[in-house]
Every structure is written in structure tokens, then in C-alpha cells.
């Protein structure tokens, strides 16, 4: 047993992480000591300030960070090698922070539902009781959602940057626990929301168990938890092969659960549907970005030398996810469930990019790498998703949001702008040229093809065409079908939601027309350090 050495903390490089964590803790203090009347303002300002501060930190760190070790990749191993601040980490941090800022804006929206936010007035009040009625009458709302969200953002940043299995597990839990809670806080349809939260929690805990067991097995294999040592062990072929394989499998379960890959997707539609729409928007975008960062780091850094054993497994899961997601989305009647299944299909597409891993010496000079393709796809997916869910929160009737698709009939006439923006997001998800989705799909397909995974690419093209059908179906309902009854009405949002939607649409367009800069950024983000 070596003596405990106090690790050094690289405060500068960890600044974005620490800023978010600090703001989260401050938010708890605010909740405890400030009067109710000013909590909303204080929390929103605090959260936005912290996120912007962290984002500035990401930019500064990205400019200063030096090449690491042998010079192939840039980055720093921080806190005794537990956190890797490298190109992919910084890219994902920036993306998560940008999505989180959009998320805060959606959380803070109060115009849509008569001056209160989308969150329950008093979560502890049992639905249908006097306590609930009283809380509604008093126009209460939970402002704890902001610190909760900050903790989740902290987890989303720690998760993909973790450089050993234990830190990764901590990141996973810190990201998940606040989201379980947030999912249960809907103001309308509370039973559905609480049910979703409970399911998410139980299944999430179950999958975390798999992750932890896998970590233990890998420790058994390599005798260490950090990725560099595991990589060494895999390379030198020491230890039991079965321990490695079973450990890899169980770790994959935990990670693939988070991104909603088939066969671990069962929770996705229920949770996406039940959670308050701002939470769904933030969770759908942010979790996927963070978890794919972690998936790439685990598979590329720790298990990269063993890729022949896990690539076939990812082939199958990618194909299954694309097809099950696309096909089941066709039969959905609820727009949030439809978007959930569509996100399952997107998981498959991103996995197509992930399995396009090639050894560095096999890549032609300047050839697009799988990390670059996946990072770019995540950026396109994140903004289109958060924008689409933001639009969903606008379409309402007397009982809250109208999520039944057939009730969206005639939206094109009722409010052409909202319908047009939503149609645009759907076309982007379908991968129509001149939207971000097209470039993203092209990138992941070409890296997979270059790595020889052509069966997956053929399946992916076919699946994307099935998926295109379902997006066009929604567009047809909005524009061609006759409204049922008086049709839905579109609530006028405040500047908060409007900004989110506008920025999401603008980014989706820009990434489709001029994707160069972001693709370059993803290329500069380069490779993982180990």
C-alpha cells in the first residue's frame, strides 16, 4: 500500500467545473436564506452567471492548454490524474454549458402557464389534495430546480472528463440523481411525472449497479482503475480475458442505458413524456452529450487496444437502436414520445460514428476522425433537440401542453412561424441537406465507412430514410390536416423561450450551411489524452 499523497488541484484548468459546482452550492444557500419573493430572480441570475463564467473559463483554458506528454494531443491530467482536461473534454464542456444556458432560460419561463413556471408548486403535496390546491392558489413554485440543475450540469461535465472508473461513476451519479428528481416536478399531469421519475430512478439505479460491477471486474483484470493502466493491461494482455470482457459488457450497460440505446431504451419514452418539458429538453440534449463523451473516453482510451472485441457488440446495438427507434416512432401518437423514440434512433446514428474508431496510424492525413464526427453530431443533435422540445412547450390548450399529435393538425395555419420552426427542427433531425443534421450524418457515416463498417452504414441510411418518413408525417399533420375541434393554440412565450428557440434554429441552420468552423473546432479538439 503506497502512502497517501495529497493530489495537487489544477485550479485554472478546473475552473469551469469548480464554477458550476460553486454556483450549485451557493444556490442551496440562497434557497435557505433568501425570502421567497426574490428567490426566483436570485436563482436565475446566479445560475446564468455561473454558467457564463464557466463558459468563459472553457474558452480561456482551451486557449492556454498545452500539448500533453508526447505532443499528439493537448490537455492536462488534473487532480492526481483523475480528471482529464483535454480537447474532447473542453468541447463537451462548452457544449453542455451552452445547452445548460438554454435549459435555464426554459426553466425560467413563466409566461406560458399564467405566470408560473412549469414546475410543481409544492412537490410534496399529494396530487388532488387540499395542500396542492393551496399551493396552486398561492402561486408557489420550486426554485430548488436551479441548484438541482447546476449539480446535474456539474455531473455532465465530470462524467466525460473522468479519467478513472471511480470518478466516472461519481460523475454518472451526480448527473443522474438531480435529473431523477427534476423529472418528477411537473406542475401539470403530476402523476405521470412522478411515475416517470420513479421509473427513471429505479432503472437508473439498477443500471448504475451494472456499471459498478463492471468497474470492479475491470479492476480485477487490470489491478487499477485509471484508464491509462487499464489500457496498458489490455495492450500487454495480462490478466483474465473473461474478466475484461464481462467487465466491458457491464460497463457498457451502464453507459448505454444513459444514452438510451436499444435494448436499454425502455425508460426513454416514459421519462421524456412525463418529465416537465423544460427538463426533458435539457436532459435529452445534455445527458446524451455527456454520456457519449464518457462512452468515447472509456472505449477509446481504456479499451482502445481491445476494440476488435467490443466493436461487433456496438455494431449490433447501433443497428438495433436505429431501427427500433425509427420504426416505433412511426406508431407514436404523442409528440414527446415520438421525439423520445427519435432520440433512440439518433443514439444509433451517433454509435455509428463511435464505432468508426481507427488507430491513428490508419487515418490518412487530415481524414476526419471518429471523435471529430461524433462531437460534431452531438452539437447538431443537442441544439435541434432543445429547440424542438422548447417548441413543444408552446403548443397548449386549457389543460396544459397539447402533446397528442393529431391535436397539432392545422398548426401551420394557426401560427405559421411556430409550425415552420418546428418543421425545420424535424427536417434537421431527418438529415435534409442545408440543415445541421445532414452534415452530422454525413460525418458519422463516412467515418464508419472508412473503418469498414459498411453494413452498419447501409442499415443507417435505410433507418434514416424510415425516420425521415415519420418526421414528414408530423409536418403533414401540421400543414395538411384539418384541425380537430378548435385546434391547439400557441401560447406566446417570453423572451426566454423565444431566445432559446431562435438560437437553436439559427445554430441548426448555420451548422447546415457553414459547418466549417465547428467541424474545425471538433478537429482541433483532437484526441483524448491518457
Amino acid at each position, binding site marked *: 500500500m503506497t502512502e497517501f499523497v495529497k493530489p495537487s488541484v489544477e485550479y485554472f484548468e478546473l475552473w469551469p467545473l469548480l464554477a458550476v459546482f460553486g454556483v450549485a452550492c451557493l444556490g442551496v444557500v440562497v434557497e435557505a436564506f433568501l425570502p421567497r419573493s426574490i428567490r426566483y430572480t436570485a436563482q436565475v441570475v446566479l445560475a446564468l452567471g455561473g454558467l457564463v463564467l464557466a463558459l468563459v473559463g472553457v474558452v480561456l483554458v482551451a486557449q492556454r492548454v498545452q500539448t500533453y506528454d508526447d505532443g499528439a494531443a493537448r490537455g492536462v491530467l488534473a487532480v492526481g490524474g483523475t480528471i482529464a482536461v483535454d480537447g474532447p473534454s473542453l468541447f463537451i464542456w462548452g457544449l453542455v454549458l451552452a445547452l445548460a444556458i438554454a435549459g435555464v432560460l426554459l426553466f425560467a419561463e413563466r409566461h406560458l402557464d399564467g405566470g408560473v413556471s412549469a414546475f410543481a408548486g409544492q412537490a410534496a403535496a399529494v396530487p388532488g389534495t387540499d395542500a396542492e390546491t393551496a399551493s396552486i392558489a398561492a402561486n408557489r413554485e420550486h426554485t430548488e430546480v436551479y441548484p438541482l440543475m447546476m449539480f446535474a450540469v456539474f455531473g455532465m461535465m465530470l462524467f466525460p472528463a473522468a479519467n478513472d472508473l471511480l470518478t466516472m461513476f461519481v460523475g454518472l451519479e451526480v448527473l443522474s440523481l438531480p435529473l431523477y428528481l427534476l423529472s418528477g416536478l411537473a406542475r401539470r399531469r403530476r*402523476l405521470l411525472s412522478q411515475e416517470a421519475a420513479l421509473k427513471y430512478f429505479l432503472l437508473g439505479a439498477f443500471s448504475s449497479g451494472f456499471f459498478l460491477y463492471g468497474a470492479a471486474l475491470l479492476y480485477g483484470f487490470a489491478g487499477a482503475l485509471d484508464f491509462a493502466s487499464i489500457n496498458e493491461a489490455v495492450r500487454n494482455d495480462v490478466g483474465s480475458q473473461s474478466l475484461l470482457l464481462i467487465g466491458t*459488457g457491464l460497463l457498457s450497460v451502464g453507459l448505454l442505458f444513459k444514452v438510451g440505446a436499444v435494448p436499454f431504451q425502455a425508460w426513454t419514452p416514459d421519462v421524456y413524456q412525463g418529465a416537465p418539458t423544460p427538463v426533458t429538453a435539457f436532459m435529452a440534449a445534455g445527458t446524451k452529450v455527456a454520456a457519449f463523451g464518457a462512452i468515447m473516453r472509456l472505449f477509446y482510451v481504456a479499451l482502445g487496444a481491445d476494440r476488435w472485441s467490443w466493436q461487433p457488440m456496438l455494431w449490433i446495438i447501433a443497428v438495433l437502436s436505429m431501427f427500433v427507434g425509427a420504426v416505433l416512432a412511426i406508431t407514436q401518437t404523442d409528440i414527446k414520445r415520438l421525439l423520445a423514440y427519435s432520440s433512440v434512433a439518433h443514439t444509433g446514428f451517433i454509435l455509428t460514428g463511435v464505432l468508426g474508431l481507427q488507430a491513428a496510424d490508419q487515418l490518412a*492525413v487530415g481524414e476526419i476522425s471518429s471523435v471529430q464526427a461524433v462531437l460534431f453530431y452531438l452539437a447538431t443533435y443537442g441544439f435541434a433537440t432543445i429547440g424542438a422540445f422548447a417548441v413543444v412547450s408552446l403548443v397548449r390548450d386549457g389543460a396544459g401542453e397539447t402533446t397528442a399529435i393529431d391535436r397539432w393538425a392545422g398548426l401551420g395555419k394557426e401560427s*405559421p412561424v411556430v409550425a415552420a420552426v418546428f418543421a425545420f427542427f424535424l427536417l434537421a433531425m431527418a438529415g435534409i441537406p442545408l440543415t445541421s443534421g445532414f452534415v452530422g450524418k454525413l460525418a458519422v457515416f463516412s467515418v464508419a465507412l472508412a473503418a469498414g463498417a459498411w453494413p452498419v452504414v447501409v442499415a443507417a441510411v435505410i433507418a434514416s*430514410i424510415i425516420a425521415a*418518413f415519420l418526421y*414528414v408525417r408530423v409536418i403533414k399533420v401540421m400543414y395538411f390536416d384539418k384541425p380537430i375541434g378548435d385546434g391547439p393554440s400557441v401560447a406566446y412565450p417570453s423572451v426566454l423561450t423565444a431566445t432559446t428557440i431562435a438560437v437553436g434554429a439559427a445554430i441548426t441552420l448555420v451548422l447546415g450551411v457553414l459547418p466549417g468552423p465547428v467541424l474545425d473546432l471538433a478537429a482541433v479538439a483532437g484526441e483524448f489524452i491518457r
Partner: protein
Amino acid sequence: MNLLSHSVLAAGLPMAEEGAHAPVIAPDMGAGGVFDLLWLVIALPVLGAVLLLGVAPFLPSSLRAVADKHGHLLGTAMAALSFVLSLVLFLALVGRDAESRQVGQQLWTWFETGSLTVGMDLLYDQLAALFLLLITGVGTLIHVYAIGYMEHDPRRRRFFGYLNLFVAAMLTLILSANFVGLFLGWEGVGLASYLLIGFWQHKPSAAAAAKKAFVINRVGDIGLSLAIALMFATFGTADFGAVSELAGEASQGTLNALGLLLLLGACGKSAQVPLQAWLLDAMEGPTPVSALIHAATMVTAGVYLVVRSNFIFDLTPVAQTAVVVVATVTLLWGAILGCAKDDIKKALAGSTMSQIGYMMLAAGLGPVGYPFAIFHLLTHGFFKANMFLGAGSVMHGMNDDVDMRHYGALNKAMPVTFLTFAMGYLAIIGFPGFSGFWSKDRIIETALAENLIIGILALIGAGITGFYMTRLMLMTFFGEKRWEKDVHPHESPKVMTVPLIVLAALSVLGGLLLFNDWIVTWLEPVTGHVEHHEPPLPAIVITLIITAVVAIGVAAAWFLVGRRAVPREAPQDVSFATRAARADLYGDAINDAVVVRPGAALVGGLATFDRVGVDGVVEGGSSAVGGLSTTMRRVQNGFVRSYALSLLGGALLVVLALLAVNLG
């Protein structure tokens, strides 16, 4: 079959032996002058579409009324301006040396990352120049015609917006200098076609037809997108220039795959067997749409794709053979459908399919055929647009009735329509001197020279063409009046007949393009030079034979249709062949059995599995109104448990798969 592939191989081999590729595309990027305005050809109709569709709905109501009333003029003006510009560009191109008639324009770099660069680049060469004139020229005429045809439609402004959108997308398809840009245009015309087929959305049949066209075209798009992905993987680029340079270095298997995938894409867009089923239904769209999109331009995009990708097809005899087979089947298939249809537009649609089959056939024959494919494409654009618009004019006079059994003796009632239609008729059957005579003659001649069987089948197709077009002509314009009550046919207004007259003139004179072999020489820098095979008989004899076969077809129609009274109801006691042709040769039934039903079963099965097996609470949750306890009980009654079970099962699968792959 053996004979066929052998012969086509022989056609392709001499080139491979000499090591000569299709010409490399290397456009002059700094041509300057009027060529700097190339982008404007696309931008004008885009502007029209944006103003009519994007801006007009948001105007204050008084201004919007103005836009609704006069919007069509703006749309027509944009198409016309685009045509004028195309003409100026064409003249400028003619003015350049024959060697430097490839002009490029770089608009912006769409994306660039490492070695992967895709530019928004335009390529204007001899091939694109001809297409530009066809699209904007015929497009403008059809815009003018539609002013009259859509006069009483409350959504006329929107209609013209869609038309402009279509023209812009089609021009993008033609002018792009790489396959990605072509794909953008390809999707764009598909979208415009979808919107326009379903334009009369109050008719369920129109909505169904639009959906069918969309779905079948997506199948074709699989081919095109995979081809592009394969190009990126093989060559690292999808630029016409770079691919045409590198194509020779790819393996034969890759080239075969590329050719077949591109053919799949072409089949979808150009309604070739087995993806032909959507075209007849697409006639649900307003007639100007049928004329522009489903006759003159969009459906010929597949032919353009094959000719443009000549640098790939020339190197892959396998794919060329496939093109020839598909084309021959389609040209007969479409002709047979044309014989049995009583709906005038569907009969014409069958004919379109068949004529595109001829173009495809020529394109499949390689460099000897490319110029004639394009030549027939142009003449067909004239005479088929002419006849569709003529059919629209007839429908206009007959209260939108499309059943030819309710027509008859319209030659007196609608003299201008009759005369112009007759010009188109003479052109399509190949009456000596008319445009179609020259173009079809050359295709059949070339086919005979390359492969006797294919040539004879194409010849038979020409005879059937003579039959069904004469039948259509006789049923519509001659014989006795079989009109419905309260129908008073009248000639259409000037705004509709003038485009007819112009198109009729083009149908007659289109053959001039072949004067002095002009079109062959003009296209040679694109299609490549190759020595023609000697046809089995002297050219003049072949021409006489073709004309005789057509005459037999015409005569057959005269004896079977012209000399008898046409029943007002389609007779039911007909031969099996007629029944099969009426049912589109069971194209839908085949699709249904092979694709639709298994697909639906798969979706249904998955959905059931999802609902019953895994996803227990699809709608249950939203209807839950009881207390939390109810929810809890349901949760404990197994739904989460079943989710968890599926998670456990998945985990087992993952681990077992890993172990099986690696330790097994």
C-alpha cells in the same frame, strides 16, 4: 441474357483497352464576365419562392390581398428572367472555344475538414447549358399557362411559390459541381413534387398519391445517398471533377456498386421499373405540374444522373447492363400501360415512363448513346409538355373530366388545342420530320447496332407507342361526341393556348438540334468520343423499318378504336392482358406483397412487442387519474419490473455476445 451482357461488355471494352476514360471534368473557375452571374439563375426562382411563400403570408391583410391577386405574375417573371439569363449564358458559352466550354463558380465552401471538402460549387458546361434552357424555357411557358389554368384556385399564389421552389431545386440539381449539391437539388425537387402532387389536399386520393411518391422516392434516395457515402469513402470527395479523375483507380467491385447504387437512385426519380408505381398516381397533381415535373424535367433527372456520372458508368459494364435491362423493361411496361388507360393523363404518364425508358436505354449504351439520350430528353420535354398542357386544356373545357370515354369529336370544339396536340402526337410516334422522329430513330438505331435483341424490343416499343398515342388521339378528338350532360367544350383562353403554340412549334422543329450532328458534337467534350458500331443494316433501311412498325401500330389503333364506336363505360369482359395493363401490370400488388405487407407486419409486430412485452404503460399513464397509490401499485404490478427485466436481458445479451465473439 448471355448474349446481352456479352455484347454490352464488347461495347464497353474497346475503351478500357485503349485506357481512355470519360473526359475529366476540369472547369474554368475564373471565366468572369456573364458567367459570374451563374448563381443568379438559381437565386431568381429562390427569391420568388421566398417572397411568395415566406413573406407574403406575414403581410398585413390589405397587402396580402394584393399578393394573392398578383403573386403569380412575380413567380412567372422570376422564371422568365431566369430563362433570359440562361439564354445569355448559353450564347456566351457558344462564343467560347470548344475546349473551354466548362465554366465553374465557387459560391462558398459548404464544409471543409481535413481532406474532406464539400463546396457549394456550380458547374456550367455543355450538358448543363442544355438542361438550363429546357428547365427555364419550358418552365416559363408552363408558368404562363398556369396563370390561366389556376385562375379560379384560391391558393394560386402558393401554387406559384411551389413552382418557383421546384424550378430552383431543379436548377440546383443540374448546376451543382458535386454529388452533394446534386443531392440537395434531388431532395428539393422531391419536396416540391410532394407538395405539388398533394396540392389539392382536400382530395384524399391526392394526399395518398403524394405519400406514395414520397415513400417510393425515398427508396431511390437510399441508392443515391449510399453512392455518395461510398464515393467519400473511396475517393475522399464527391466532386465531379475529382471523381472523374480518380474513378479509374477504384476497384471494379467498388465501381460496380457505385453504378448500381446510382441506378437505384435514378430508378426512383425517373419512375423506372421496379420503382415505377408512383408516377401514374402523381397525375393527381394539377396538370401544369404533371407537364413540368412529371414529364419535362424532374422525372428525367435519373437520365441526367447516369449521363453526368458517365465517368463511373463507362468503367462498369455490369451497371451499364443493368441500366439497359431496366430501361428496356420500363419502355415496354410504360407503353403497355399507356394502351389500357382511359384517363388521359394516366395514358400520357405511361407514355412518359416509356419514353424515359428510351432515354435510359440510350444512356446505358455508353458514350455512343449519351448524346441521343439527352437529345430525346429535350425533344420529349417539348412534345410531352405540349401534350400534357393540351390535355389540361381539354380538361379545362370538359369540366375537369379526365375520362377519354367521355370525350370525342373535340377537334372542332377546340381547334387550337387539337392542332397543337396533333403536333405533339406526330412528334412522339416519330412521324418523319418531326422532332421525335430524329431522336427516337437514333436511339433505336444505336441499340440495334449494339445489341440486336434490345434493339428489336425498342423497335416493338415504338410500334406500341404508335398504337396507344393514336388510340388517345382518336378517343379524344375524333369519333362521336360522348360528352357528359351540361358539358360545353370551348377553346381555352389565350394565356393557355400561346404556350401550347410555342411548344407545338418546338415539337416540330426540335429535330434541328441534330442538324449537322450539332448536338453530338456539342456534347462530345462531356460524353467522350467513341466510334460508332456499324448497324446491321444501312441507316436508311432501319429508318424505314421503324417507320413501318410505327405505321402498323397506328393502323392497328385505327382498326381497333377508330373504326368502332367507343363505349362510354369501359367494357369489363376483356382479355387478361388488358386487365393486367389496367391494373398497372400489378405493380401495386407486387409492391404490396413484397414490401408493404411485410413492412407493416414488422411495424405492427414491433409495436405490439413494445406495448405488451416491454412498454407496458404507453397510454396508461396519461389516463391515470387516481391517487398516487394507484400509480404505485401499477408500478409494483410489474411495469418497472418488466423494464428492469428487459434491461437485465439486454445486459446478458451484451455480455454473452462479447464472450461469444471473442472466446467462441
